């Protein structure tokens, strides 16, 4: 009877994961979907604690003190960390939690390996692979986390690909030896662990910091697979379905994220234009002349406009200028100017970055236009103000088949009457390429840090 309840709990858990993921992929139901999955997870955890029994000995679990101790500590720390983290450091946090999951899978395999009971070949495969993938995911996530919060700098390691290849080969050889039972020396097993950790680190190290969201999504699906191996080991349906679902959904999500940036996964992993090269590709072309505009002129132009569109980019996030931006919007609206925001899907450094950022500053949701809508009404805008965006307004994506970003849909700002670009210099953005837009006749440059410029602009506007 009790084991029937356990299995029903597991089935319900699996179902909530499917439904939760489904709901998470639609804007209206996303939040509820997350809660549905969380409820299923809670059920599965408590059912395991109280109802699980060893299939051979029929013993229940013991060590309740340790288990609840761990659960409580993890819950408190996890909740606090998740509640305190800044919106813009979310990907960092996700990476950290992902690493925890990987480490958990690694530890499970380690303990199972140490158990004296003889293991079948199938069990050995599962233990070794679970440990291997869990470790890669753990190590990789830690590096990704370090990169995102700036502790680890981007660096190309000479011969990284060759080293990775060797590490990978080494892991395979050791894994075959351990699984095949050619040796029972436990150090071989620990050797795999060491190689996997090194591989995880070297795999993520050369990838540009800005590509981390994609990498985290990939590591996410690795951890899913590691969890699934646990499902094999304990013949546990909820671990199996949950793990594999995340493994496959995560892989698709990774590909979708790459597509939104118009790049291939391979291109991201080899890092053809990560943070590293930024700033070097400029100057391929003869630079034209650009014209500057003063703060005062900008203020006048905007005050007498009927419609203004603001296009935020990565620079706005770096400058933490979202509140100043909202300030500007309010001042303009008071003057009867209609203000909207044009949001490019990959503006910033994580998907939805701009939405989250502007939501934080209480910008009304209906002012945020998705790219297509923004482009549709671009022709009726008097002034377009570009705040720290670059690649997402680069006309080369439309005109220049040789450009690395060719094919990416962009915000077509040149349809508007005036284009004002705020950035600190003429340096390129994330893709490291020159932007023709800055030299076009309609464009005027307004140099300076986004936050400072916005604050001055608001002050000027109040006087107009």
């Amino acid at each position, binding site marked *: 009877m009790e084991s029937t309840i356990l299995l029903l709990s597991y089935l319900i858990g699996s179902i909530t994961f499917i439904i*939760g*993921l489904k709901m*998470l*992929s639609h*804007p209206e139901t*996303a*939040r509820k979907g997350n*809660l549905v*999955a969380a409820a299923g*997870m809670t059920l599965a955890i408590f059912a395991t*604690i109280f109802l699980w029994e*060893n299939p051979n000995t029929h013993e229940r679990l*013991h*060590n309740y003190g*340790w288990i609840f101790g*761990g659960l409580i500590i*993890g819950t408190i*720390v*996890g*909740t606090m960390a998740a*509640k305190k983290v800044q*919106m813009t450091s979310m990907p960092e*946090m*996700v990476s*950290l*939690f992902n690493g925890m999951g990987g*480490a958990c899978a690694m*530890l*499970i395999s380690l*303990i199972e390996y*140490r158990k004296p009971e003889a293991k079948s*070949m199938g069990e050995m495969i599962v233990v070794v692979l679970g440990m291997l993938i869990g470790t890669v995911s753990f190590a990789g996530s830690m590096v990704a986390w370090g990169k995102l919060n700036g502790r680890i700098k981007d660096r190309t390691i000479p011969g990284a690909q060759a080293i990775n290849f060797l590490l990978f080969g080494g892991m395979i050889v050791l894994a075959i030896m351990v699984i095949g039972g050619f040796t029972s020396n436990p150090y071989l097993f620990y050797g795999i662990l060491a190689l996997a950790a090194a591989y995880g680190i070297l795999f993520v190290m050369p990838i540009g910091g800005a590509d981390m*969201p994609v990498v985290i*999504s990939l590591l996410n699906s690795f951890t899913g697979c*590691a*969890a*699934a191996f646990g499902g*094999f*080991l304990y013949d*546990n*349906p*909820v*671990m*199996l379905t*949950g793990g*594999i*679902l995340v493994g496959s*959904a995560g892989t*698709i*999500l990774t590909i*979708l*994220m790459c597509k*939104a940036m118009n790049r291939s996964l391979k291109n991201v992993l080899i890092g053809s234009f990560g943070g590293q090269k930024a700033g070097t590709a400029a100057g391929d072309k003869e630079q034209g002349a650009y014209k500057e505009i003063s703060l005062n002129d900008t203020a006048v132009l905007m005050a007498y406009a009927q419609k203004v569109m603001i296009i935020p980019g990565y620079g706005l996030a770096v400058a933490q200028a979202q509140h100043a931006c909202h300030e500007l919007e309010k001042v303009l609206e008071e003057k009867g100017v209609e203000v909207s925001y044009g949001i490019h899907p990959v503006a910033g450094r994580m*998907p*939805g970055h701009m939405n*989250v950022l502007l*939501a*934080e500053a209480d910008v*009304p*949701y209906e002012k945020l236009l998705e790219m297509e809508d923004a482009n549709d009404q671009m022709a009726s805008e008097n002034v377009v103000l570009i705040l720290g965006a670059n690649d997402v307004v680069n006309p080369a994506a439309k005109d220049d088949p040789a450009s690395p970003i060719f094919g990416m849909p962009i915000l077509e700002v040149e349809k508007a009457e005036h284009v004002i670009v705020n950035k600190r210099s003429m340096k390129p953005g994330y893709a490291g390429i020159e932007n023709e837009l800055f030299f076009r006749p309609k464009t005027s440059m307004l140099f300076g840090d986004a936050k400072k410029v916005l604050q001055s602009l608001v002050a000027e506007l109040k006087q107009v």
Partner: protein
Amino acid sequence: MDQFTSIFTDAASYRLITIVILSIFLGIEVISRVPSVLHTPLMSGANAIHGVVIIGAIIVMGQAGADDYLALMLGFLAVVLGTLNVVGGFVVTDRMLEMFSKKKKTK
């Protein structure tokens, strides 16, 4: 080799393999049409779901002998890390989505 192929013939395993295949397809189908604004929350939600590995940690922990201190410690660590993954993952996802939905309602 025989031991290896037996992994496939054993009635139990082929069912597991079927489950794996179905889950893979289901994962792909479920995600395939997600708008890009939801990429980050979805990644984060999926991250919380693979925290289901915690169940393995609980099983390992709950079976450890009372005097096997190494196993107890490692198991305890596994439970803590797994819980972090689950709880942190769901809470952080909820916070992200709150950002979107709060604004949407005022619409």
